[in-house]
Every structure is written in structure tokens, then in C-alpha cells.
């Protein structure tokens, strides 16, 4: 199963390192990553393979959301199918 992890907020040093640190600890492999910074607004989208994730998906999503709160960012992990259903016919 693949998840889409999004990080949106004010740009700062080390955002990717923090997020990928959590993913590494939980056995999640990053498949693809794109990011853009537009006038201080940081937006990163990661595609991650969570089939070997060591915790339930809900727990991973909570952990990333907590990290986001600490960093003042909106961090979400969502099953890729919600985006596939909405944007692909």
C-alpha cells in the first residue's frame, strides 16, 4: 500500500530531515518526492511505500501530525487511493 505524505507550511531548515526521520524509524520507504517553495510557503509531497511500516497506518498518521504541530506545519499521511479516485477516471 502506498501513502501520500504532504507537508505544507512556512519554510524552515530541516523539514525533510525531520519527516524522513520518522519514516525511517517506522520502516517506510520514500518512493518519490517533490517540493516547491513559493514566497516562503513550503509544499512537499512524498509518495511512500508503507507495506513494511512497523506501526498501524493510523499511528503513523498521528505521529506525523504531531511532528507537524511541533514544527508549526500541516503534515498529513493519506492513502493514495483518495487522490486516485478523485483525480483519475
Amino acid at each position, binding site marked *: 500500500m502506498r501513502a*501520500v505524505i*504532504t507537508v*505544507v507550511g512556512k519554510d524552515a531548515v530541516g523539514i525533510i530531515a525531520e519527516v524522513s526521520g520518522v519514516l525511517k524509524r517506522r520502516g517506510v520507504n520514500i518512493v518519490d518526492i517533490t517540493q516547491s517553495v513559493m514566497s516562503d510557503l513550503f*509544499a512537499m509531497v512524498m*509518495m511512500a511505500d508503507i507495506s513494511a511500516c512497523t506501526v498501524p497506518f*493510523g499511528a503513523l498518521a498521528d505521529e506525523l501530525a504531531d511532528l507537524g504541530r511541533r514544527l508549526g506545519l500541516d503534515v498529513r499521511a*493519506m*492513502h493514495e487511493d483518495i487522490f486516485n*479516485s478523485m*483525480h483519475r477516471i
Partner: protein
Amino acid sequence: MLNTLDILETIKMITEEHLDIRTITMGISLLDCASEDLGRCCGKIYDKVCRRAERLVAVGEELEKEYGIPVINKRVSVSPISAVAAACGGGDFADLARAMDRAAAAVGVNFIGGYSALVHKGMTDADRRLLDAIPEALAETERVCSSVNVATTRAGINMDAVSRMGRILKETSYRTRESGSFGCAKLVVFANIPEDNPFMAGAYHGVGEAECAINVGVSGPGVVRAAILRHPGCGLTELADVIKKTAFKITRVGQLIAAESSRRLGAEFGIVDLSLAPTPAVGDSVAEILEEMGLEVCGCHGTTACLAMLNDAVKKGGVMASSHVGGLSGAFIPVSEDAGMVRAAESGALTVDKLEAMTAVCSVGLDMIAVPGDTPAEVLSAIIADEISIGVVNNKTTAVRLIPAWGRAAGERVVFGGLWGEAPIMPVHTGSPAAFLARGGRIPAPIHSQRN
């Protein structure tokens, strides 16, 4: 790889535009709970709801986490109780509602629908017993919702049932007077009631339905309004396309959640309901969509035309997005649950008469409208008859959920809280239709019901 902008669009819809799954409703057949002993029937109902819906709330929460979209309500609908309990000998039919209420509390759902009777052509003894018990059932339970189908396009209108519903509304209003007559908010009178509607208070599990089915309702007035906001001044044809595309995306999420929840719960995939269901939250209003389309205020001339176009575009976009569309599927215009409708009603721009006209082009009917507490039963019945005849003649579902607010007059307010919102008490016409209602009997089915 998915397009970043598409991903961010979805997240924006959820975080800023109130996109959510309004309800995952599990329909459960109770037809095998019949018993000659009412107490035994109640026991069977409780056991079956608890068994079938045991994991409903947990699965809803699981999906919410995994897909990152709020699932607001998890609910249960059951077979019409008047049919389930038809075999029961003596006893109080309100006990059946108490059993449903206990079962709903045990599985953790906030509402259970199906305390219902289908009386469009006539009443069985059990239907009469159920109707008599409705005021007590609604006053003494917290989670039970009731619906009564008084007409169909094929059968015509059972005016005796319509008259009775006016009196039932009055009694329910009185019995729940301490809570703003809230009991009436849990009672819907229908024409052409759908068997697979996931939305309360009108949800019930039809007799033609599967043993257990999942029906899902999505919500997206805020998303549609935001999409229209991004297209100021465009022509109506283009605007219809904007609404269609948005409705498609919203419905796809409903389809995904319906498929996944039915798989995990071991139930049939029933339907996705395409309705635009507003909430009292600012920006999640159908009235505001109509105003964004170009009306100064919802209720002004032009409102019916805007609503007709909106309703049609939502259906066209949604139909392709789901394998099974059903339920009510249209724009809801409940007054108390829609901040824009409340504002328009309070300013006098939106009247009961205009709302009635609006229901001719959308689902579902006169919904969550508070009227003066001293409105006579005959006037309530006549409002029901008018609305029901729109459904019967136009071959569509219409419904009435009126709240005669006991002890209060037009211009006052009644507050229900939460998703139920608050309602200004709207004036109704005072001329008496009593002699018309006293004629009794049935209004015959319209000529175009003869389709065979």
C-alpha cells in the same frame, strides 16, 4: 506520480471547504425478528443490531484515519418497524423504539432510523399501533428516528394518514416542549420514500434491500461554493460544468469509502447518495451557493431556477462517479441546518411558500422548518398535503420535517445545537383547510402513474 496540485486541491477541500463523508449508514434487515411476543421481538431487534453493527463505528474511524477525510456520522437504518412488529400481540409499540435506542447506544451510533410505516395506500393494524406510539417513542428515546410514507405516485395520497400526521406532530411537539419540540426533528413524512436513503431522520432499510447494506452520503456545499467563487462572471453553461466536475470529485470519495467500508464490514455495497447536505458551519451552506451564483439573497426571485440548475449539475457530475447512485441525491435545503437559509429566513427574504416552490426542483422537501407552536393540526396536515402532492405529481421524493415549536410564535427562535442548528420560527398561512381534510379518503394517483 500524482499531480501535486491535485493533491493539494484535495487537502484544501478537506481542510478549508468542509469536504467530508457525512454519513456511513448501515441498513440492517430486521424481517427475521418477527415474534408474536413483543418483548421477544424487542430482544431480537436489540441482538441483531448489536451483532451486525458491532464494528461500524470502528471501521468508520479506521477509514477516517487512513484516507484523511472526516467521517462525521456512523448510523444504522432498519426495516420498517410496523412490518417487523406486525405479528406482535399485545404490548406497547414504543417499547420497540426503546429497544432500538438501547441497541444504537450499545454500538455507539448517534441515530437509528426505521421506526417507520408505509401507509401510502392504507394502514394495517400494526401501522396504526406504530403511528399512535410515535410521539411517545420520540419523546422517550434519544436516537430513534421515525418516518411515515403517506403517498406514492403509483398509489396516490392517503389523506387519512396525512390528517393523522398533523395530529402526531402536535402531540410530539407538546411531549418534547422542554427541548424546543425537538422530537419533531426526528420525524419525517414522505411521498415516494427511498428505500436506501442514508440520511437521517428519513433513513430506513427497505423491504427490497439486502440483509445488510452500506449506504454512504457525502457532503460538499462548501466545495461547490468555493469552485463557483473561483469562476466569477462566467456564463451559466460553463458554471454548470464547474459544478459537475466538482460533484464528480466529491462523489468519487463517497464511492471509495462506500466500497471500502462495505468490504470491511462484510455488507453489500448499497448506494452513494449525491446530496449536497449543508451544515450550520459558515461556508457549508446551499443558500450561499445560490447567492454565489448571483442572487442577492436566497429566496429572491430566481432562486428556484438557480437551485434547479445546481441540483441537475450535481446529479450529472455525480452519476458517473459512482457505480450505484441512490437515496435522495439532490441538494438539501433544510432551514435550521444551513446558516445561509437561517439568515435569509430571518430577513424575511425566504418564506415557507418559496421553500415549497424550491422543493419542486430539488430534493427533498420542507425540511427543518420551525413554525408557530399554535399552528392547528389541520394546517400542519395541509402543509404536508401540499408538499406531498408535489412529489406525487412530479414522480419524485418529497418530504416534510416541520417543527411546531410549542409555546413560541413567529419571529422567535428555537435552538437545537450541533448539526441540527437553530431555526427562526416562520409564519404560515392561517386560513383553515379543515373542511378539505375532513373529507378524508385518498387522492387518486395522477394519470401519468399509468405507465404499464
